[in-house]
């Protein structure tokens, strides 16, 4: 009996290879992300306090907007050329294959944005020592976004206006990610402000938000792969 993880690794490898060979998708998402996060400070002027206050929201909204079009296309190519059909007739469990695809999508879609975020954070006056926390929130919240996006993309397969459909499904589901994510990064800022003002010990208000976001991620990790698999099975029927 060969491991059921082997096909999962094969899918991850294939998707990463494809993405690297045609980096257009990654670059378009990244450039969109950079555009939003540089245009907002330019438009708002140079009030550092104001910028720092809205930075978490802007960064999160930019991540969501930049990743949405790519999530929408997560399965379309595989659906058209019959790769999804072969996944369905594979002895490997479809939900596992979908989890592999989702984790790879995180690497391809979210990771470049997370890596670009520190540079952009500086424009918003986010000091360098906060970055670890901010990156943690973006990485975790980004996983939530991909898990939601995969379900939405699978559910909208076969519909002609799949872009609109995906957006409509993703929007309400990703509200909690936005709320906890923004609150979390804001909390990091206040944590640091208070730590600087008083004794130096961090109060850790951001930890609570991180745990909520983590709980959400875990729920979605369990929920999203089987839902995605079922939606794809339905679309291939």
């Amino acid at each position, binding site marked *: 009996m060969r491991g059921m993880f082997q096909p999962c690794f094969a899918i991850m490898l294939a998707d990463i290879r*494809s993405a690297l060979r045609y980096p257009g998708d990654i670059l378009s998402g990244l450039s969109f992300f950079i555009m939003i996060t540089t245009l907002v400070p330019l438009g708002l002027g140079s009030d550092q306090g104001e910028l720092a206050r809205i930075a978490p929201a802007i960064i999160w909204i930019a991540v969501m907007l930049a990743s949405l079009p790519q999530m929408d296309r997560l399965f379309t190519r595989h659906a058209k050329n019959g790769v999804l*059909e072969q996944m369905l007739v594979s002895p490997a469990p479809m939900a596992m294959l979908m989890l592999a695809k989702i984790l790879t999508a995180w690497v391809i879609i979210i990771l470049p944005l997370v890596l670009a975020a520190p540079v952009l954070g500086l424009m918003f006056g986010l000091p360098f020592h906060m970055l670890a926390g901010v990156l943690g929130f973006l990485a975790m919240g980004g996983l939530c976004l991909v898990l939601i996006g995969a379900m939405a993309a699978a559910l909208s397969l076969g519909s002609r206006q799949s872009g609109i459909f995906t957006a409509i499904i993703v929007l309400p589901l990703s509200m909690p990610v936005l709320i906890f994510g923004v609150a979390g990064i804001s909390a990091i800022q206040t944590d640091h402000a208070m730590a600087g003002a008083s004794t130096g010990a961090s109060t850790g208000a951001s930890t609570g938000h991180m745990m909520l976001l983590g709980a959400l991620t875990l729920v979605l990790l369990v929920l999203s792969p089987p839902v995605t698999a079922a939606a794809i099975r339905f679309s291939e029927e």
Partner: protein
Amino acid sequence: MTPSPIHHPSVQSDTGNRLRIDDLAMMRGGMSLIEALHLRLDAGQLMFLRGANGSGKTTFLRGLARLIPITQGQFAINGIINTADQSALMRQIILIGHRNAGLEHLNVTDSLRLMASLMDMDISQQQIIAALDHMGITALAHRQMNQLSAGQQRRVALSRLVLAAPQTHRLWLIDEPFNALDDAAISQLCDLITTYCHHGGTAIISGHGHMPLRPDATLTLGTKPQGVVT
């Protein structure tokens, strides 16, 4: 996860039929395409699935691959019935559909490697080269899938069968394999299928009109009484 006893060929019991279909009915788009079908296929047999466009050939093959629900009856492949565990049943089949399942952004070798691992086959680089050689496309090994012609892509898809051929217990479901192929490729494919059946493999091939192989059974869809075949 416990290993399935069916997986290993040595545990394979050849006492039963490779494919057994009892009272099968299938519908598509509100139309009844297959009714009260009984069918037996044994090891080493080749069946030709014939019918006009829209007569239900693809529906039938996809039904056996459990991609489309059957409306009535049951079937068993190597004794594994259609309601059994998904992965146990999928280990009994190889499906080559209409679509070639090539990964456009990968080269031929990498695309085949993924397909092989989805088929639960452990293959080496040499096996891939040998498979491509069998379909006469060794020169394409490192070409991008999206640069190939329709016929070349079909050849790549069919070379999955060469990779799968050692597992002779798996029922091949091949949907219109001769489309887009030139004469050379058709004869290579015929050789492959003949050899597979000679070694105890079983295949169902759909098509309309001329069939370049001599099948052991023919199932014609679209004509009303279907009765028993074989």
